[in-house]
């Protein structure tokens, strides 16, 4: 029997990046916030301190900071014709746990998406005609413009002390930056990180080919930094332990370092750790939610937490699951194309090619997760797709990420998998190779969606979220194109050996690390028939319920999604200040 607790003003499910940003805006205006987070707090433990922070086996290979798959995983089928099976140990994407969420073990790569991304359907139809988007590719506008989000991008970059080089300040293209960048009011708060040797080789090659290379924008601090809230970052040590790790130098921008210390000082703020939300209580007739139920994982006791406003700020999959379980909003039906919850589930396409330089000291261990160089010429809709049989594209990047010895080695094609020749190849090439990667778009498809698994349950007896997902024709063709462009850059770089550049093809492989950027399932939009939440992230069928995070993005671009996720969260924080004062449709 659940214990009923005292009603709170705003309750946020999930204590990660979005909860931190929303809470910052709300508590600054005196509005009380309660955050419920299923995990604990990993900071100041072995994960963040030398020497154990540098343990690749523990944190990287064994996923020490990632969601425990024994407790909760997702099931997958590649099409509706197949039966689903649970992914028993996921490697493809890695949700976080604990205060700060996945933004604690993230790498720190911080993009703004293209100016047209929030109006992607309008953009593609105006450029290529009304029939250019195949019927099954359910790209849609977000109902909010980049211009409306710009000030929130700007604020987020200041809060997180992002290091980078602007490419477009107020419409003026900046040398050394990304000429395809959406216009920004200001330069990045900090200068870009140092380039690696690989970055220098790639930059010179790209320039020779007429492209405009630029340094990656990084949540790895290029210097010491104090943000507008007085929170500090140390200087990056280029140790290469970023993705899947906590930063021992306090140089990686995380909610745990930059948001929660401020919030914990504010009397309006409370976070309850080790509290796993089981469900949202829905008053269907009143079109409102009344609160949430959660399990205290330290005692096993169940609580009912009434709230004036509920915000779902959990990982992509959990936001969809909570809506599906509570029956809030119509479940998506791929047969009719009707319904919204679970719709537009997207992953992110990626491919790579290895380059081997016997005479260059690449030293892959002298790098951070974000000390890369990019070209954006073949990303998204930055190039003309007239006459091409696909939409979308990818950013091409040289990023060493740290050369960790278990997973960060490269050997030339044809090398045996063990024995003296294998060892010799590792000895010869470890310090003399790097990879180019293409991180590319994944546009929504009618047959890619989320729902609840009919058979498999989590440790709490609740259904797993089921993915029905595979790489569709548009993404396969796109990856083929972008991967060939990447291969051509690799061939021009002067490497002695260029490995095979293999485009991303189906079936979607859960065993291979690709990208943690799963998006969609509870998408935003101006039309309730094709969106779960409004452009203000307010649920169409429960006016005091809001959803935020990657789950509201209706497509995935060829960029890491943290930038738009953060901008939307800060904007939601401001919207909620208005909403609490005058509860109505925003």
């Amino acid at each position, binding site marked *: 029997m659940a214990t009923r607790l005292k009603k709170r003003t705003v309750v946020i499910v999930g204590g990660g990046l979005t909860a931190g940003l929303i809470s910052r805006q709300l508590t600054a205006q005196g509005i009380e916030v309660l955050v419920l987070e299923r995990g604990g707090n990993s900071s100041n433990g072995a994960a963040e301190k030398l020497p154990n922070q*540098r343990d690749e086996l523990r944190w990287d290979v064994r996923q020490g900071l990632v969601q425990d798959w024994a407790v909760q995983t997702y099931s997958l089928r590649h099409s509706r014709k197949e039966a689903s099976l649970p992914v028993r*140990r996921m490697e493809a994407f890695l949700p976080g746990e604990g205060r700060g969420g996945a933004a604690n073990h993230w790498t720190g790569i911080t993009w703004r998406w293209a100016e047209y991304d929030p109006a992607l359907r309008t953009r593609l139809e105006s450029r290529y005609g009304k029939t250019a988007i195949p019927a099954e590719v359910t790209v849609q506008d977000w109902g909010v413009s980049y211009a409306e989000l710009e000030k929130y991008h700007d604020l987020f970059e200041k809060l997180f002390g992002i290091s980078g080089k602007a490419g477009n300040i107020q419409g003026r293209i900046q040398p050394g930056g990304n000429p395809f960048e959406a216009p920004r009011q200001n330069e990045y708060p900090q200068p870009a990180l140092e380039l690696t040797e690989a970055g220098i080789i790639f930059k010179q090659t790209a320039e020779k080919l007429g492209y405009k290379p630029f340094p990656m924008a990084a949540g790895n601090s290029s210097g010491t930094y104090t943000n507008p809230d007085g929170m500090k970052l140390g200087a990056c040590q*280029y*140790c290469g332990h970023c993705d899947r790790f906590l930063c021992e130098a306090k140089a990686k921008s995380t909610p745990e370092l930059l948001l929660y210390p401020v919030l914990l000082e504010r009397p309006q703020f409370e976070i309850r750790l080790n509290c796993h939300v089981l469900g949202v209580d829905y008053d269907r007739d009143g079109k409102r939610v009344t609160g949430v139920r959660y399990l205290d994982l330290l005692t096993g006791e169940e609580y009912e937490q009434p709230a004036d406003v509920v915000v779902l700020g959990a990982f992509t999959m959990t936001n969809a699951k909570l809506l599906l379980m509570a029956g809030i909003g119509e479940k998506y039906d791929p047969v009719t194309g009707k319904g919204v919850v679970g719709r537009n589930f997207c992953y992110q396409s990626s491919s790579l090619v290895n380059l081997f330089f016997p005479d260059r000291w690449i030293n892959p261990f002298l790098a951070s997760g974000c000390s890369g160089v990019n070209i954006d010429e073949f990303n998204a809709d930055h190039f003309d797709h007239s006459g091409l049989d696909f939409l979308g594209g990818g950013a091409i990047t040289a990023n060493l990420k740290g050369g960790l010895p278990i997973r960060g080695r490269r050997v030339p094609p044809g090398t045996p*998998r*063990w024995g003296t020749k294998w060892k010799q190849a590792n*000895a010869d090439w470890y310090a003399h190779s790097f990879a180019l990667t293409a991180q590319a778009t994944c546009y929504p498809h009618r047959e890619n969606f989320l729902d609840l698994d009919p058979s498999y349950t989590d440790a709490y007896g609740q259904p797993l979220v089921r993915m029905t997902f595979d790489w569709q024709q548009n993404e396969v063709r796109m990856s083929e194109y972008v991967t060939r462009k990447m291969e051509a850059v690799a061939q021009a770089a002067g490497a002695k050996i260029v490995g095979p550049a293999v485009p991303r093809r189906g079936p*979607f492989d859960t*065993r291979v690390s690709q990208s943690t950027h799963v998006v969609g399932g509870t998408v935003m939009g101006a039309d309730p028939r094709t969106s779960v939440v409004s452009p203000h992230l307010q649920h169409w069928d429960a006016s005091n319920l809001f959803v935020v995070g990657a789950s509201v993005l209706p497509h995935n671009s060829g960029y890491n999604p943290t930038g738009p996720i953060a901008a939307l969260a800060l904007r939601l924080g401001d919207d909620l200040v208005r909403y609490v004062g005058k509860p109505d449709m925003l």
Partner: protein
Amino acid sequence: MTPEKNPEQGRRGFLKQVALAAVSAPLGANLVAAAADVAAPNQPPDNAAGPAPAVGYASLGPDEAGFVEAMVNVMCPADPLTPNGVDCGLAIFIDRQLAGDFGRGARLYRQGPWAPGRPELGYQLPLTPEQYFKAGLAAAGDVCRTTRGKRFEELSPEEADVFLQELAADKFTGGHFSLGEWFNGLVYPLFEQACFSDPLYGGNTNKVFWKMLGYPGLPATHANDMVEFRGKPYPGARDPKSIADFS
């Protein structure tokens, strides 16, 4: 640099003596047990800076250890780059992983119902990794006796290498599960981890694989190195440091 020139070779030197003493027998399960027996209580620690040498298996039985030791010695033969796999701690690493959280299925979703699926859906058997490893060892051992007429550890290194390649290529069918998936999905990753993990876990003894790569290890505070040694040989790569060096 050859490992023999390194001063921190106490345990390896010791194991080599044991191996020489047992030269008539195939390098097998008895080696580590023998090492444990010979290690007299009053023997001085052979490396005052490091932990006591790991001897004795926590998970593997004698036959299993025999297979694993022979396998890691084929996959990592003694050569100018490293000592053999056993002396590099690879069998101990694998044993410790099987005996620990990983082997017992930590962080692995283990609820039924159980059904085979496409490889891309990942591991779908009800066994823990430890059980799976051992079931595969037994099946591979049976296949070896059937197809070669010998136990795996009795094969010559060349024969054993061919046998492992055929395992990896999933040439042997008819068992309860694919031996190719077993080898590629469980055994091979453990082998790579044994080579390149921090020596804390029993493999990569004396950081020999890090020296082979030129990976400098800890503390990896490279803010200045990043500029000074960009595009140049990094001196620290010759003398890597591990967690034990900072503990």
